[in-house]
């Protein structure tokens, strides 16, 4: 009964990973006429010396940390609000999901115009409020462009966390809150002692999914900044894409994928240490 499943997993998951690791031991690029030539650890030596790639790894990790933290906080707040609103919950749920279901590249084009220095709504609002005295070219500054990417990512993916958390909230038995209320627990204590611990498994899954997805961010950056200005928003997936599709350097591209996967595995372990274990310790 299990064998079709094993074949499926083998074809879809194991084979590509093995192929990628094998390919990373070969030189296969325009210089070799796209034929694979055994290269030993040559690609890995180049990887170790590849400053721009490691800079992109650092940049992507910072982006992931900031974006996912904001998404987590906002997502929980939105979920709590929707959970307690009672009336119109269905409608609110649907509305919060809209950014999540829209195609990212189309949204990214919209964001470009919103951050435009002459016509953009972001500058217009900030000028009206008086925060700015001069319009800024957001995507033309390293910090501005990174901020814009974080904002766009947070806006788009907060609903995902909110939805997961909302589902989690609905599984917490009301009796726990009633009992706590009788014991005289404040709202904050109830949140801190009941809601958060009960949500832990959900938060773990949400953060893990989002962090891995965010580490692999591509479309938003590709469309909004192209990695600019001056490479200030160059992310790991963009570098890997260029190496494969633009430079046709498959051996080294596979090596970058292996490196990216190792970083992702480390990220997963870290998130598990932070969020996956604590709950079990308390039980």
């Amino acid at each position, binding site marked *: 009964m299990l064998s079709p499943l094993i074949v499926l997993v083998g074809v879809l998951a194991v084979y590509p990973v093995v192929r990628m690791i094998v390919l990373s031991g070969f*030189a296969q*690029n*325009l*210089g*070799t*006429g*796209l034929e694979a030539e055994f*290269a030993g650890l*040559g690609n890995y030596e*180049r990887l170790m010396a590849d400053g721009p790639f490691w800079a992109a790894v650092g940049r992507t990790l910072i982006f992931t940390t900031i974006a996912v933290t904001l998404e987590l906080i906002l997502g929980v707040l939105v979920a709590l609000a929707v959970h307690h609103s009672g009336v119109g919950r269905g409608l609110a749920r649907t509305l919060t999901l809209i950014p999540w279901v829209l195609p990212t590249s189309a949204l990214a084009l919209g964001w*470009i115009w919103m*951050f*435009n*220095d*002459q*016509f953009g709504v972001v500058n217009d609002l900030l000028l009206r409020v008086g925060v700015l005295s001069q*319009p*800024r*070219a*957001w*995507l*033309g*500054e*390293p910090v501005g462009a990174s901020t814009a990417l974080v904002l766009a990512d947070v806006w788009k993916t907060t609903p995902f966390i909110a939805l997961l958390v909302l589902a989690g909230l609905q599984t917490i038995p009301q009796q726990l809150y009633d009992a706590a209320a009788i014991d005289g627990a404040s709202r904050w204590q109830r949140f801190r002692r009941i809601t958060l611990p009960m949500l832990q498994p959900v938060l773990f899954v949400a953060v893990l999914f989002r962090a891995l997805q965010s580490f692999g961010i591509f479309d938003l950056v590709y469309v909004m*900044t*192209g*990695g*600019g*200005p*001056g*490479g*200030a928003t*160059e992310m790991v997936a963009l570098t890997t894409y*260029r190496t494969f*599709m*633009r*430079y*046709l*350097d498959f051996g*080294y591209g596979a090596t970058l994928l292996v490196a990216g996967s190792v970083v992702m595995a480390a990220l997963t372990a870290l998130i598990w240490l932070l969020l996956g274990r604590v709950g079990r310790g308390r039980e």
Partner: protein
Amino acid sequence: MMEPDGRGAWREMFARFERENPDIRVVMIEGPAATDTREDIYVNSLLAGSNDYDLVYADVIWIPKFAAAGWLEDLTDYWSPAQWDDFVPASLAGATVDGRIFRVPVQMNGGLLYYRRDELAEAGAEPPRTFADLVALSKNLAEPGRSWGYVWQGKQYEGLVCNYLEILTGFGGYWIDVESLSVGLDAPEAVRALAFLTDAVGTISPYGVTTYAEEESRLLFQSGGAVFLRNWPYVYKLLAAEKSPLFEQIGIAPMPSSEGGRPAATLGGAGFAIVKSSPSKDAAWRLIEFLSSMDTVRFLNDRIGLQPARISFYEQSSDPMQQSLYSVLRYTTARPALPQYAQASDILQRHLSAALTRQASPDAALRAAAQETRLLLGGGTSR
């Protein structure tokens, strides 16, 4: 696979070809509008070795890479030298690798300077011929707070390289010499060219140009926000349309150059190549001959504004607009036809963008770019 065929002009041509050649059936796939995305689709298919496509509708910069990968049929001997001679030299140079031609151009592009005829007439000025003229006129005619002098494309992408290449050639510099593989990016001309652009940002050009691609710059110009615009020929039809606010107020000129230099335009454009493994090369070539014929290019020019690469088209045309376009297109500069073009372009884009956004001085940015480019070219294709 082609660009989207919104007005059906290509479809009409294919139908006509099928009527004249009943033994051949043409299947056109409308691909995405973004050139990069179409390149990815072709690369995926060609890599897999599948014969999805017999023809490649190819941007000029793909050719060296596709040829080095062994995907394209060598077309040099399909025509006599005299037949090739009718094409603007740069349109062939961009598609020639080691003296062999891999693509027949059907359409060519070059950067142009668009200007506000009304504003220049009011000031009694001629279109700028030198960079100094451009700066002076921009400063005179722009109204601080309401409009800028000169808008162009300064986002980190391929278009930035095209913009810079025009200024660079105008200053008498060069990027990469394809013959000797020498790199000219740290030469004084190259630094002067980049300094011209970095100085423009915030003075005659809005800070935002460092984030603009073609459409952002066109919209700013079209809404009256600038006196001069660097862009491709395609925007002419949009700017000069009757419902455009700039109807009858647009002039075009070659890009300015330095004193005594020559105006330059970066070559763009598309043409047809044949997939080497295609089982129907003869039919594909007959289609190419038909599509690049004078009748077809004239029709495509008339219907969807494609600029032909055939010299005789311009010699036979009496339209002054076509003549002024030709005066620009004949001087187009091809981007270096190298298999590693994509890497070289990415290096240059990154460093140009860093200088424009004040993260590095023009001098330091170009020194770094030159060093990385030399490493790229000297080390073969990064084994």
